[in-house]
C-alpha cells in the first residue's frame, strides 16, 4: 500500500506517492518539468540542473528531491525558467554543437530544450574544446563533442545492461566519458541493442548507419516543443 502525499506545483494541487521524487509525481500528473539527465528508466542522477525548481523557496532538483506533504513547488515561472535557459546555454558553449550538421538534430533533447526556452544564440562565448571521437566499434560510436555529461549511458550500462562499459574520467572542465578498455569502445562488451546506446539525449553515443533513417522534418521535436507530449497526456497513452 502506498501512502499518498499532497503538494502543489505552481499552485496546482497534486497527489503523489510517498517516496516519489518531484519529477515522478509531476510526470504522473501530466506536468512537464524540463529535464535532461533524468530518464524514467534510470536511477536519478541530478547533474544537468535543468530541472531546478524552487521548493518551499529553496532551489532543488526535481529529479532527485522527494515529495512531502504541503510542499510548494515553483516550476514554470520566469525566474526559474530564466535560470534553466542559462544552464542550457552553458551546455551549448561547453561542447561543440553544430546542430545543422548533426544526425541527431530534431531528436536531440538539448536542441529541443533550447527551442523551448527560446535560445537564439548563447550569451556566453563558445569554448571550442578539443574532444575525442571513438568510432572503433562496428555498430556504435561516441562523439564526445556533443556529450552533455548526463551519465545516462553510464547508468544504463551499469544498472540495466549489467556491463559498466562507461564511466567518467577526469574532473572539473576535464570530466569526460571513458570506456572500459584502454584502446577504444570496440574492446568493450557494448552491443547495438544495449540500453546505454538508446538513452543518449544528444548525438553523442550513437548507432552507426542510422543517422538519417528518419528524415528531417519528421523527427520527434520537429513539430511540437519538448514536453508537449507530457503536458497533453499523450506520453502516457502510448
Amino acid at each position, binding site marked *: 500500500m502506498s501512502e499518498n502525499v499532497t503538494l502543489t506545483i505552481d499552485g496546482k494541487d497534486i497527489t503523489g506517492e510517498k517516496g516519489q521524487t518531484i519529477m515522478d509525481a509531476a510526470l504522473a500528473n501530466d506536468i512537464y518539468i524540463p529535464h535532461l539527465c533524468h530518464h524514467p528508466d534510470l536511477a*536519478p*542522477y*541530478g*547533474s*544537468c*540542473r*535543468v530541472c*531546478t525548481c524552487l521548493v518551499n523557496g529553496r*532551489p532543488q*532538483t526535481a529529479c*532527485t*528531491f*522527494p515529495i512531502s506533504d504541503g510542499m510548494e513547488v515553483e516550476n514554470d515561472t520566469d525566474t526559474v525558467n530564466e*535560470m534553466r535557459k*542559462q*544552464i542550457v546555454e*552553458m*551546455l551549448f*558553449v*561547453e561542447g561543440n554543437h553544430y546542430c545543422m550538421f548533426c544526425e541527431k538534430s530534431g531528436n536531440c533533447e538539448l536542441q529541443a530544450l533550447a527551442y523551448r526556452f527560446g535560445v537564439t544564440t548563447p*550569451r*556566453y*562565448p563558445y*569554448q571550442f574544446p578539443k574532444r575525442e571521437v571513438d568510432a572503433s566499434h562496428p555498430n556504435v560510436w561516441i562523439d564526445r563533442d556533443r556529450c*552533455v*555529461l548526463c551519465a545516462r549511458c553510464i547508468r544504463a550500462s551499469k544498472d540495466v545492461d549489467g556491463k*559498466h*562499459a*562507461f*564511466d*567518467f*574520467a*577526469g*574532473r*572539473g*572542465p*576535464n*570530466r569526460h566519458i*571513458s*570506456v*572500459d*578498455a*584502454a584502446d577504444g569502445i570496440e574492446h568493450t562488451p557494448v552491443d547495438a541493442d544495449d540500453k546505454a546506446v538508446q538513452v543518449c539525449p544528444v548525438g553523442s553515443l550513437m548507432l552507426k548507419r542510422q543517422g538519417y533513417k528518419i528524415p528531417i522534418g519528421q523527427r520527434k521535436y520537429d513539430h511540437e516543443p519538448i514536453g508537449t507530449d507530457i503536458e497533453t497526456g499523450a506520453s502516457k497513452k502510448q
Partner: protein
Amino acid sequence: MSFGGPEVCHTKQERLTMSESLQSAIKEICEVVGNDRTQMMEIVEQVQDRFGCVSSEAMDLIAQQMNCHRVEVMSVVSFYSFLSEKPKGTVVIRLCNDVIDLMKGANHAADAFRDELGIEFGETTPDGKITLEWTPCIGMSDQAPAALINDEVVTYLGSDGARNIARQLKEGTAPSKLVGRLGDGNNANDLVKSMVHNNIRNAGPVVFAEGIVKGDGLKKALAMSPREVINDVKNSRLRGRGGAGFPTGMKWDFTRQADGDKKYIFCNADEGEPGTFKDRVILTEKPDLMFEGMTIGGYAIGADEGILYLRGEYAYLRAFLDDVLANRRDAGLLGKNICGKGFDFDIRIVMGAGAYICGEETALLSSAEGMRGDPKNRPPFPAQKGYRDCPTAVNNVETFCKVTRILEKGPGWFSEIGSEGSAGTKLLSISGDCHKPGVYEVPFGIKLREVMDLCGAEDVQAVQIGGPSGRLVGKDSMDDQICYDHLATGGSLMVFSRKRNLLKKVLNFMEFFEEESCGYCTPCRVGNVLLRKKIEAIVNGEGEPADLEYLQTLGETVKTCSRCGLGQTSPNPVLTSLESFRDVYEAALKPALKDGSQPEFDIRAALRPAEAIAGRASSHFAE
C-alpha cells in the same frame, strides 16, 4: 607514503621485470586490504607511490585483482591530482600557487626551479628524475612561499632556496635530507621531522590551554549515557568549525536516532580552503584532543569505528598520527573495552590525494569508499545514509577538540565564552599582509579590527574572510564581529594591503574553483570557467561596463543551481568583491571610444598582420 614516484625504466629488459614486479606488487597491495573495493584509494596511492604512476597496465591489473572494471579504476585515478596515469619523476616538486604564496614571491622560487631544472611546470626532467608542478594551497600560508617535495614540506622558499633544492635533488639527495632546521613543537618529533612552524600566536582557553590531561574528557563522557553526552554538546551550543556551522549536538542526535546497527564517525582533516592551516596545527600539537573528541562522538552516536580523512598534503604527519593512535590504544583510550567501560571503538586514517572537493562531506565519503570524489545527492543526508550507506557523522578537526573540552569542563564553561549566537572560541588562520601570520584562538564576537591589531596588519585594503568561498570585505566591515551571524569563517583570514591588486586575487580564486570543481553539475563545471574568463578579460584591460551585469547574473545562477557547497559558494569572490569594491572594477574597465561605443575587440590591431602582408592599410579604414 609519498606522492612522488621512483622507478622509471628505460630498457626493454627493465620494462619486463617492471611488468612482473608490477603484477606481484599489485597483487600484494590488494591482498593487504583484503581485496576490498572500498579501499581503492589506499591501493592506487600505494601503486602511485611505488611506481610513479598508475599506468594503463596497472589499472588493468588492479581491476583483475579486485574483480572490478578497469574504467572504475580509471575514474578514480584521473580524479585526484596526486595520482597520474603518466609516469612522474622520482621526485615531484609541487610549488603552492595560492594567492598568499604568490604575494610572498612564489614566482621567484618558480623561476629558480625552471632555470635550474631546465623544465616548465607540468614537465619532468628528461632523465625522468624530477617533475615540477603547481599545486593549490598546501596549508602553509603562514610560512609562504611553500612547496611539497614528495611528502616533505619546505617553507619560506626564496629563489636561492629553490635553486639550492633543485641542485641537491639533481645530485640525487633524498627529499627527506633537504629539511634543514626543524620546526617547533612536534614538528621536531622523530616521526615528523619537518621544518614547518606552528606559529601559534594566541593560545586561547579551549584548544591551546595548558595542562589538558589526556583521557579526562573521555572518562567523564563514558560515565554518562550517550544521550547525556549529546545533551551536554547541545547545551554547550557548539556549532561546527568546518565552515557550515551546523549545531554539533543536533547532528549527533540525528545520527544516533537513525536506523542502522553500524554507524561511523568521520573527522574531516581535508583542510583545503586556501588560507586555512589551523587544523594542521591541531594535528601537530593537539592530536589527542581531536582523537578523544572522535571517541566521545563515537560513543554518543553509537559507532565503533572512526575514520580520520587526512588530506594528501599532510602525508608528512601520517606516521606521527598513527603513533598517537597506537599510544592511545596502549593507554586503554581506544580499542576494546575503553577505560574499562565496555565501549569498543577504534580509529583509522584514510588519505586524500589532492582534491579540494573531498572536504565537502559527501565527497569525502565517496572518496573514503574508494571512488572519485563526487559529492552525493541529498537527501538522504550522511546522518541517515553515509559511509557504506550507514548513518555517519562528519565533523571538523577543531569541532572534535572542542567536544573533548566541553565534556571535561562542562557545557556551561564553554557556552559562556564567545558571543550570544556563537559559543566558544574559534581558531583563525591569518596570513597575507600582516606582521604575525599564524594561528589565533580568539573568542567568537571579536571585532575584525581587533583581529587586525592582533596580527599586526598594516594599511589594510581588504580581508578575505573564510577563504575564497567566503567574503571579500573592506574597511566598512572593521567593526563587524567574527561569528556565525556576521563575519562567518571556517578559519581563513587573508589580509590584503593597499598595494595589492584585488582583481588579480579574485582571478586567482576563480582559477582555483575551476580547477577544483568535480565537474558533476553544469553550472559549477561550466559557470566557473566563464566567470574566470570574464575576470581575466577585465584584469587584462578588456572589460566593458556590461560585463559587471554579466558577472552578477552568471554568478547568481551558479550559486543557486549548483549541486553542492563548492558551486554554491564559488562565485563569492566575484559577487562579494562586486559588492564591496565595485569602484575597483569600474576603474579597470576599458574606456569608451570617442563615439561612446565599446567594441569587444580592436579591429585595427586584428587587421594589422594582414595589412602588413598586403603592404597597405585596409580600404575600410583608409583615411
